[in-house]
């Protein structure tokens, strides 16, 4: 019973999403019209860690919590890429994760979108040139939207996902 009293005391803590799209979000290629049409208001997101330091992951895990609550937009995380519509990729793609990332992308049914989160996913970040890194995410799988930052905060990531879905205006 104390639990329910505490729930009532805390109340609704979800913050409203900011209006403006920060410069961090960039659209890399034209979003497929079929994807926009099919993935109307229900999107399954599969998060792939392609060798990241987990800084981006901590921000992404905040998305599922009460403050940022991605479910209110109809998004939810899924376990299997077969259930996914959007791949959320972090990390400079390390050599060992290159094939698994590609396999994950192939296992996802069409229509699908890819959002690369973080400076590492965009251009390998601080790990650029390392012997263990194969290249940015765009060199392994086609990327639709990138979200720069090290790490980007959850609101920016959310804006990036919604941009990919065509639910927000953006600029290249």
């Amino acid at each position, binding site marked *: 019973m104390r639990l329910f009293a505490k729930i009532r005391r805390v109340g609704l803590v979800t913050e409203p999403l900011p209006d403006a799209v920060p410069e961090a979000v960039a659209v890399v290629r034209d979003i497929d019209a079929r994807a926009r049409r099919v993935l109307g208001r229900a999107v399954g997101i599969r998060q792939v860690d392609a060798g990241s330091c987990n800084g981006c992951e901590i921000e992404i895990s905040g998305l599922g919590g009460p403050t940022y609550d991605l479910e209110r937009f109809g998004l939810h995380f899924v376990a299997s*890429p077969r259930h996914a519509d959007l791949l959320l990729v972090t990390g400079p793609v390390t050599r060992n994760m290159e094939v*698994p990332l590609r*396999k994950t992308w*192939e*296992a996802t*049914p*069409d229509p699908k979108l890819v959002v690369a989160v973080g400076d590492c996913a965009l251009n390998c970040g601080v790990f650029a040139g390392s012997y263990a890194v194969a290249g940015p995410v765009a060199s392994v799988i086609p990327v639709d939207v990138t979200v720069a930052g090290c790490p980007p905060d959850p609101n920016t990531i959310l804006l990036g996902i919604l941009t990919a879905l065509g639910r927000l205006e953006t600029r290249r």
Partner: protein
Amino acid sequence: MTGLSPTLFWLMVAGYVTAASGLLMPTARLTRITGAIGAIAGGAAGLSLACATLWTGESLTLAAPGMIQAAGGLALHLDRLGAIFLAIISGVAIPVGLYGGAYSASYEGRYSTRWMALNVGAFLISMSLVTAAASAFTFVLCWELMALSSFFLVITEHEREESVSAALWYLAMTHAGLLALLAAFYLLGSGGADGSFAALRAGAAQLPPGTRHAIFLLALAGFGSKAGIVPLHVWLPRAHPAAPSHVSALMSAVMVKLGIYGLLRVGLDLLGGGPAWWGTVVILCGAVTALTGVLYALVEDDLKRLLAYSTIENIGLVLLGVGAGFLFRSLGQPEAATLAFAAALLHAVNHAAFKGALFLSAGSILHATGTRDMNRLGGLVTRAPWTAAVFLVSAMSIAALPPLNGFVSEWLLFQAFLSGVAHSQASIAGLLTIGVGALALTGGLAAATFVKAFGISCLAIPRSPEAEHAHESPRLMRAGMLLMAAYCPLLAVFTIPVLATIIGALAEVPGLPAVPAAFHAGLTLHTSNGVAAMSPVAIMAVLAGTLVIVWMFVRVIAGRPARIGDTWGCGRIGQTPRMEYTSSAFAEPLRRVFSQLYRPAADTAVGVARPESPYYIQSMAYRTQLHPWFQRAIYEPLIAAVERAAAWTRRLQSGSVNAYVGYIVLALVVLLIVVMGF
């Protein structure tokens, strides 16, 4: 019609004798052909005879008092109760004959197929005559012939130690059962009646109660060991897998039912029922048998042994119905009794159909891959599609899934128990509630067992090179399997006529009235406390209709072709059979849940790289074994005692000729004293 029954009978005998005459054929191919034709012809004639008897009510009576006069001669009388079991035998003989025509080819060159043909013929004819036997002598003669011919069939692969051991266990247990039967018949006739069933029936009423109880218990033990009651079942999981697959089908589908037939004949027909504790004992035996059978089937890795344990489970279910029938009859609820017996008999018929199909498809798998170990099978659904399809249909039937026949008989068993609970006193109601719980748990565990059996054997990727190179069976084997599997949906669709026939057959037994059951589109039972209705045909129709509508709907909205992509394994590279679930793994959660019953012995062997430190592990081996506890608790001490007694008497065989001459002289002296004394 009067003249037709003897003709059909002699046709049946001729058919089976033709099958047995494979012994005399010059080539192996001719042996196979005569075996197949004989079994099919005999089966067809037997089935017609059984149906004629069931539908017209005419009984076939044949007597040959001249044969073996000293024991009272042979007497045969086929009434409706026996006709049901004759129908089972003949119905199964036809597909088995078809199947065996091609299957026995795999034995040519290594083992004698002529001898196998003779024994199959003898097996079929002795089983058919058991159902028609009308005197104790005829019954026991045919029973023993059945046991001997099946013994020779079990030991067909006599170069395998497993088969020889299985056959010896079988021989010992069937003769122990025979002793109990002989004692029961002796006690039955102790009132001065001659051996014929009619006289025994008349005389049984005058027997003292103690003798009647003893007869019932002896009959339960003797027939129960043939049927597979726990703990007299230990021969079944050994003998059924060791025999050739079409013989396993005959043994599992048909022979164990004759144990039920014997119990019904002696307990219900000859003795005419008894006090409430008879039914209670049978119900308890049935519950224990059903649960034990399914629990051991669940953890088996050998496909045929899994099917053998599943037979034990289903016999337990039949016994639950039989016990409930005896109980209700003694409590004065005759309609509930008829319902219970009818449910049990219907389940016996249904079980013959799907267990026969399961064993035939298991034989086909064995033929295709050479292995029975489910941990080495897999991927057969694409390599041997007909076999897999037969396996699936019969697995769904045995798991009691609607709308197939297994569901109908389980439903009837539930209804029989339910109709009894409502009208009984508290203790009986408690017993019946436990029965319902056991029935439900068995049904659920059986479903789990057959998901495992079909899923691991037939689906996914082959787990061994043998499975990878599996091929479909030859046409004749396929035909036999498909015919047997076709019985399942047919029995579901025609449940109502079959059930009506069974109830009509039971009505011949005094004290069992016909149950007011209305049969039109569905099956509506008007039991004394309400209405229960179920319609397998309606469910089948609605299910089929719904599936078609949904499929068309999906085709229209989303009919795009699918892309082929690797099985998702978290991005791993490549997939090997070692990544799949194994048969032992599938049953592991339930094995843990019931670990108190199984008492598995587990052994972990850890090999370390350096003896001084246990942390540098080089190898690890985990071995676990399930040893059925009855063997440890009951049979091993028994066998040890017999061996000790034998070792003690061996002392008489000293090897010295003088001692032997001394024994002879001693025997002569004793004999002279005895003769002179009288």
